[in-house]
């Protein structure tokens, strides 16, 4: 038999072991190919941001695939160590053994690449069209992705070759007696270390606790006042959570299992079987659960965040910019009248229905900073709210949580701040904005020491008429220019510009993160599947004997299911909790609001339902194996 035949038989006759790993590889290859097709498409390539982000994404997938492949191959080969030991004993050279390992892995690789390319070619253009829609490129042409095919084949061939060669080298460097040795009792390699357990808890608490820094105002203020700290915090969270989680998994799983093994529970029914099995394979199980937790956390976080951002972007921006279109005219702006006419003309010519309003505002300086004062009547008309303000008083409309108690105005006067109300300015300008009585406002204007600003607002429905409003605003922008930035005396602020920009970036983020999330979920399932499959195979004779000794089939299956439940549900549980902390971090960083938890709950329902279905499928599969093994043919 040739080496090729030998390797082919090894793979084909153990398809059950390789199927999850193969599927996981196919998913990675498809996503890599799709990203590469986006990057190489001539029309999409004109967008530098698409190029950059896709380049980053495919580099990430390549690095991740190398790691995942190394981990999976290591798990496969660990199970086959004795076989390789036997082959070496029978006279096979180490070079031949290495060759068979590499060939085996390349066979999986070649078939996965072929399948990935076929799926990629079928769905690739669809995904290119989707990206074109996100970045608003019309009439995207079909381009045969020859460059992407080459890129995918070369990248993944190298990845499979490097990973398998490294693993083969590891196997072949071991002494034959080590390879032939009976399976290692992994629990003997582990000892409970109190310092490491405490360190694990401290690091985990530190990582998760840091996510909540925004909850405590004083801590939040301290962090926000140190830019370096803001930059370091994400890395601090990631590093301490990773290290803490690994130490906690390792130390506490050992501690808990050791405690259980000494309890009465251990000696009841067949509990000793699954608990001792888990204890003996603890090191491998801990690694599997840790990696699986990380992958699921990344997937869940990516899905929740991207969906939350995409679905809340319009509401968030509407809260930040309370008007559809704003034109702020500063001082003696000579273009005011013509610009406002231009805005009205364009809106009308694009069929955009609008309601125009204008009011005066006084500012301490001709920038977006400084204090701003609006007359009570103007504010009430704009906001639809009624305020009660006496002369000498002011109402803070900056949106600040803790407003000042007074505000100084020209003429040496100090106005008492008597309350807060809804902002009418956009987030960039609303700081230091106050509503004063009409008499005070007139008095302030009469001092002549404040910048006179005329604000024109155009109430438009930029949701129902999104495209019309956007086109009209693009025309207006091209006609009147940027404003203050160009040395002019106005600011033109259409809300739709910000909405489109944010939707663009969030949809692109969603596009990438959902695909990566799918890769991670499949990879996580693949890891757990292989671990469970190995465990089930090893425990089949034990299960059969338990049945012979008097445990009913249902009892045997219950014992088998307990281990499966633990290995499957623990990473999911941790991943959900860690995703919650990731959301808390985003809230602390003002990237998301508390509503993200509602989105998280809604998103988690289908994800957890999917995981439950997978568990049921695996349970059915493994139970079937146990049943057919335990019950002889009759």
């Amino acid at each position: 038999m040739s080496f090729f035949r030998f390797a082919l038989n090894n793979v084909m006759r153990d398809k059950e072991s390789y199927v999850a790993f193969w599927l996981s590889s196919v998913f990675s290859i498809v996503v890599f190919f799709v990203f590469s097709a986006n990057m190489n498409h001539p029309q999409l390539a004109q967008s530098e941001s698409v190029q950059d982000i896709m380049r980053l994404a495919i580099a990430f997938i390549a690095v991740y695939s190398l790691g995942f492949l190394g981990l999976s191959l290591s798990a496969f080969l660990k199970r086959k160590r004795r076989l390789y030991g036997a082959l070496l004993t029978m006279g096979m050279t180490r070079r031949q053994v290495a060759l068979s390992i590499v060939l085996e892995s390349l066979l999986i690789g070649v078939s996965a690449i072929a399948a990935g390319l076929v799926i990629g070619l079928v769905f690739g253009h669809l995904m290119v069209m989707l990206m074109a829609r996100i970045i608003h490129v019309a009439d995207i042409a079909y381009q045969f992705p020859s460059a992407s095919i080459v890129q995918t084949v070369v990248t993944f061939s190298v990845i499979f070759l490097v990973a398998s060669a490294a693993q083969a080298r590891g196997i072949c460097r071991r002494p034959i007696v080590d390879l032939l040795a009976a399976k290692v009792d992994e629990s003997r390699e582990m000892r409970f270390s109190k310092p490491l357990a405490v360190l694990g808890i401290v690091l985990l608490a530190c990582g998760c606790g840091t996510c909540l820094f925004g909850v405590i105002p004083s801590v939040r203020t301290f962090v926000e006042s140190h830019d370096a700290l803001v930059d370091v915090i994400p890395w601090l969270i990631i590093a301490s959570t990773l290290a803490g989680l690994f130490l906690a998994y390792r130390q506490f799983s050992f501690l808990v299992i050791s405690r259980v093994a000494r309890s009465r529970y251990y000696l009841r029914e067949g509990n000793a079987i699954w608990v001792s099995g888990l204890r003996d394979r603890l090191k491998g199980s801990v690694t599997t659960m840790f990696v699986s937790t990380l992958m699921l956390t990344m997937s869940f976080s990516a899905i929740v965040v991207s969906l939350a951002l995409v679905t809340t972007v319009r509401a968030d921006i509407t809260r930040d910019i309370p008007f559809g279109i704003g034109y702020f005219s500063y001082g003696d702006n000579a273009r005011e009248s013509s610009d406002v006419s231009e805005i009205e003309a364009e809106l009308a010519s694009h069929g955009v229905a609008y309601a125009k309003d204008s009011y005066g505002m006084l500012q301490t300086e001709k920038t977006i900073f400084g204090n701003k004062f609006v007359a009570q009547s103007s504010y009430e008309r704009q906001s639809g709210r009624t305020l009660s303000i006496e002369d000498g008083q002011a109402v803070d409309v900056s949106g600040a949580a803790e407003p000042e108690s007074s505000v100084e105005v020209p003429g040496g006067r100090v106005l008492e701040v008597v309350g807060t109300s809804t902002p009418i300015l956009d987030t960039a300008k609303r700081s230091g904005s106050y509503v004063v009585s009409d008499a005070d406002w007139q008095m302030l204007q009469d001092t002549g020491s404040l910048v006179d600003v005329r604000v024109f607002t155009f109430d438009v429905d930029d949701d129902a008429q999104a495209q019309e409003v956007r086109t009209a605003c693009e025309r207006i922008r091209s006609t009147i220019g940027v404003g203050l930035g160009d040395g002019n005396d106005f600011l033109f602020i259409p809300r739709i510009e910000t909405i489109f920009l944010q939707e663009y970036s969030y949809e692109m983020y969603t596009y990438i993160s959902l695909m990566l999330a799918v890769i991670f979920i499949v990879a996580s399932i693949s890891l757990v599947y292989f671990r469970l499959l190995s465990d089930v195979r090893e425990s089949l004779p034990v299960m059969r004997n338990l049945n012979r000794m008097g445990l009913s089939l249902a009892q045997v299956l219950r014992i088998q299911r307990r281990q499966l439940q633990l290995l499957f549900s623990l990473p999911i549980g941790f991943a959900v909790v860690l995703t919650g902390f990731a959301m808390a971090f985003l809230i602390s960083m003002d990237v998301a609001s508390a509503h993200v938890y509602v989105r998280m709950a809604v998103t988690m329902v289908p994800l957890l339902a999917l995981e439950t279905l997978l568990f049921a499928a695996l349970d059915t599969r493994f139970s079937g194996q146990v049943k057919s093994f335990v019950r002889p043919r009759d």
Partner: protein
Amino acid sequence: MAILTIEHASKIYGTGVQVRAVNDLSMKMEEGEFVAIMGASGSGKSTLLNLISGILPLSSGEIRIDGRDISHLGEPEAAEFRRNELGFVFQDFNLVDTLTIRENIMLPLMLRHVPPARMNAAAESIAASLGIGKILDKRTHEVSGGQAQRAAIARAIIHSPRLLLADEPTGNLDSAAAEGVMRIFADLNARRGTSTIIVTHDAKTASFCTRAIFIKDGCILEELYREGDGLAFYDEILNVLKFMGAK
């Protein structure tokens, strides 16, 4: 009193091409008997053991253990019956390698929810009587084949089963260890009156029993009762085996 009664038991495998593994077999075994079932590979002896233990359902006939018909028990009832009334010893020991020898021996008691203190006391007492008291806290890969099989016997008898079933219990042992294990079986039978059935193809192993039943093509071909010493019984068994081979 008969501990085991088999009447016209048949077991047919397959749906298209049918194989009659046990063919209209009838036999009786008295309480306290020590019986060897012998036959070549594929003769139906292991199938017979699986039928007696209720692991395989009968195609026809009836099997009674201690007067109870086990032929028509449902799966949970059959499991409970095996848990309480039978003890098993397997050729490859089938000790659970993630458990210690002590835990392996206690396993049948764990399945019956016996309090831990009683389990420990029973395991220590039985292990001492079988000469493995000092290896109770060792793992299965740390003991010899003979010690592992003694542990398997201890596990099979710790709950004082009505009937002890052993499938090729010396198949994986060297001759010295095999003899040691068979002396234990004989001793258990003599001292405790444990009714025992051993399936074997080894004449030396069968010579420790009080009766040898020879099976061929699913039927009983011959039966021998031990009347003299073990050596004479061994010769008689060999003669029957020669005769079976010639036939």
